[in-house]
């Protein structure tokens, strides 16, 4: 499904992007839909898209032996996931599953990387937001760890 | 403020008459120490006039080690405490700020303060670790005590300071008001001599405010070094005239017993879950200095250290805070 620039504008991730940059993003994105319990990707999968959740909720976690899944967090509307798609080796660090019917924007990671290389301003804005996402995830994970260790 | 004079034997007899209505405490020196004893006329010659200073700080008369604080404030006998040095009198001002606070007035402390006449002694000498003057505290009282006493041979000279002091002075007989400044010139000379001695002994010691700055900026090394010999016995806090932290202990029928505590005891800040912010000894050691020289001055008008030096004398590890401060300068 094609993506309208107006849909991209509504996403907080892109709030500082110029009109031109938003059109670029729209041109390399598509909209995808997932059903409840559908796996978007597994831990250690090779990733080709960066996702932003438009509607619904997703669960994020890690896999243990004997098909056991540990839920570590919930992805909410407006949040980015699958950031590993733009960093080598492009392998996912976690699995993601839809826990409600969900709609995402899928951005072609290879084309996104090309745009980052071409336009420094676009690249800086994109990387800043991705860094913030990862920073929050790391901080939350540390907090979770300290809670579980009763520190 | 004015002076009166009374012969020493008449002074002692006046005190004996007052024993009918008051408890009276005087400093007595024996082979072991100089400390407060109840006044007895037949022991009056053992009263140690103008010698610093009783081992017990004045705070102990107002904040007992242990007391029931729900039993009711009964009518206690008035007291006259004679012989407190000015460092103890000034220390009481901080305790007044804490315990006579308008929002929560301690009724037991208030009753004791209202019930007590304070007659301080001018210090005509110094102990090894006296450093009151370095903190702006004079070795004699001109305010906050009700009267101040200077003995001159067989004469007792009293500086009458407050209205309560005036009432007390009126009970002394026979006494005479001194109008000639020459008759008290010996006191002036003693003051100058003691202040000169204190200045020489404590040369270079930073004042109260500067000490706070040094303590706040000090790195961890100095605390580790000086805390090395500390065994957390709490002697410094117990003997200190301004330290007054306490515990409230529950007794049956919702009675509460207030018992003196010390931040130097391990577990002072331990909480139910087991965390203890002052667990590490150097940190606990530093905490007391931060409290006295940095935090209390931000919170209260009066000083949390009046330079009496008892903490140095009492420390069984022979830790000398003034050496620490000199090292920081």
């Amino acid at each position, binding site marked *: 499904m094609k993506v309208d620039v107006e849909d991209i504008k509504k996403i907080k991730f892109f709030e500082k992007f110029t009109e031109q940059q938003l059109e670029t993003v729209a041109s390399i994105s598509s909209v995808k839909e997932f059903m409840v319990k559908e796996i978007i990707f597994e831990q250690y999968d090779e990733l080709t898209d960066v996702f932003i959740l438009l509607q619904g909720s997703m669960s994020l976690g890690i896999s243990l032996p004997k098909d056991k899944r540990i839920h570590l*967090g919930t992805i909410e509307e407006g949040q980015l996931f699958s950031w590993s798609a733009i960093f080598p080796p492009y392998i996912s660090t976690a699995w993601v599953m839809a826990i409600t019917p969900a709609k995402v924007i899928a951005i072609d990671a290879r084309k996104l990387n090309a745009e980052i290389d071409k336009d420094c301003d676009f690249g800086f804005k994109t990387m800043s937001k991705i860094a913030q996402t990862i920073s929050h995830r790391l901080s939350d994970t540390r907090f979770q760890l300290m809670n579980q260790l009763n520190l | 403020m004015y002076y009166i004079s009374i012969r020493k034997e008449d002074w002692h007899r006046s005190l004996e008459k007052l024993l009918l209505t008051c408890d009276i405490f005087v400093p007595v020196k024996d082979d072991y120490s100089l400390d407060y004893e109840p006044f007895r006329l037949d022991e009056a010659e053992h009263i140690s006039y103008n010698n610093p200073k009783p081992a017990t700080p004045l705070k102990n008369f107002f904040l007992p080690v242990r007391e029931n*604080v729900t039993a009711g404030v009964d009518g206690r006998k008035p007291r006259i405490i004679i012989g407190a040095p000015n460092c103890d009198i000034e220390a009481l001002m901080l305790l007044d700020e804490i315990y006579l606070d308008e*929002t929560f007035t301690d009724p037991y402390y208030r009753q004791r303060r209202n019930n007590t006449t304070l007659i301080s002694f001018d210090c005509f000498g110094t102990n090894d670790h006296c450093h009151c003057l370095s903190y702006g505290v004079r070795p004699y009282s001109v305010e906050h005590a009700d009267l101040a006493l200077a003995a001159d041979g067989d004469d007792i000279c009293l500086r009458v300071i407050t209205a309560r002091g005036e009432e007390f002075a009126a009970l002394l007989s026979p006494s005479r008001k001194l109008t000639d400044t020459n008759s008290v010139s010996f006191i002036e000379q003693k003051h100058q001599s003691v202040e000169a001695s204190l200045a020489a002994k404590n040369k270079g010691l930073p004042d109260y405010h500067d000490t706070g700055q040094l303590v706040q900026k000090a790195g961890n090394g100095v605390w580790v070094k000086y805390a090395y010999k500390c065994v957390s016995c709490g002697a410094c806090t117990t003997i200190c005239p301004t330290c007054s932290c306490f515990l409230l202990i529950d*007794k049956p029928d919702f009675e509460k017993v207030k018992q003196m505590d010390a931040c130097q005891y391990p577990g002072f800040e331990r909480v139910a879950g087991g965390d203890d912010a002052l667990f590490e000894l150097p940190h606990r050691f530093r905490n007391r200095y931060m*409290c006295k020289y940095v935090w209390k001055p931000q919170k209260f008008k009066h000083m949390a250290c009046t330079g009496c030096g008892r903490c140095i004398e009492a420390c069984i590890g022979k830790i000398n805070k003034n050496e620490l401060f000199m090292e920081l300068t």
Partner: protein
Amino acid sequence: MTNNTNIYKPLRAKLVDVIEESPLIKTFVLIPEREFVFSTGQFIELSVDGVGEAPFTPSSSPLVSDKLEVTVMKTGYVTKIMHELKPGAVMGIRGPYGRGYPVKSFEGKEVLILGGGCGLAPIRSLLFTLEHMKDKLEKVILCYGSKSPTDCIYKPLFSRLNSIDKFEAYRTVDRTEEGWDGPVGVATALLDKIKVKIENSVAVVCGPPIMMKFGTIRILEMGYRDDQIYLSMEKNMSCGLGKCGHCMMGEFFVCKDGPVFTYKEIKHNPEIWK
């Protein structure tokens, strides 16, 4: 105030009900022997006869003066004995003490509340007050996290809050359990999904020290100023009167100058998260 003539003497209160909130947490419902009034965010010293006392912020409404609810987590000696008490027991209350939330200054604003664990107890009391004054508020948002679904206290609270006009309540758990289909993750993760006008808002953070630390950092990142953030510092309060010295946090007596502080007031103190 429990006793105007003797600051150390407790008021007696009859325990009329004990509600089990979670395996380690119970709410005690008390009827004081006379009317007891407290401001939102103030605390009391609750005692077991002849055993000991501990500080708690009531979890009931400050608008109710003939009944008091206190939520107690079994943590140490005194709280262990408290948990063994049955209705009919008589407990002691001293207080109320301290400086609570300046709720009057919240008027006209959006209130964001970030809570964790047992921090929901004082938050519940604050929510009662905010509900009472909701016509004067723009919005109230609660983001709360517990370690697991079982550890969450006041479970019916969230659906009730979401049914009140201008109120939004979100819940998450660190660790999921069978039957839980809500968000998983820490409370700070919930902050990414809320919409709040930061320039006309205050943030209230209440929970264990770790949660307060991470929460404050995240709220500052969101754009809140340090004087917009209110922290309830629970620190070994003992006498409650600003005298015994046990709760000193730098130059502050937490029992008297707090327990509610703005982050601006205390941020210079390196010990605040201990």
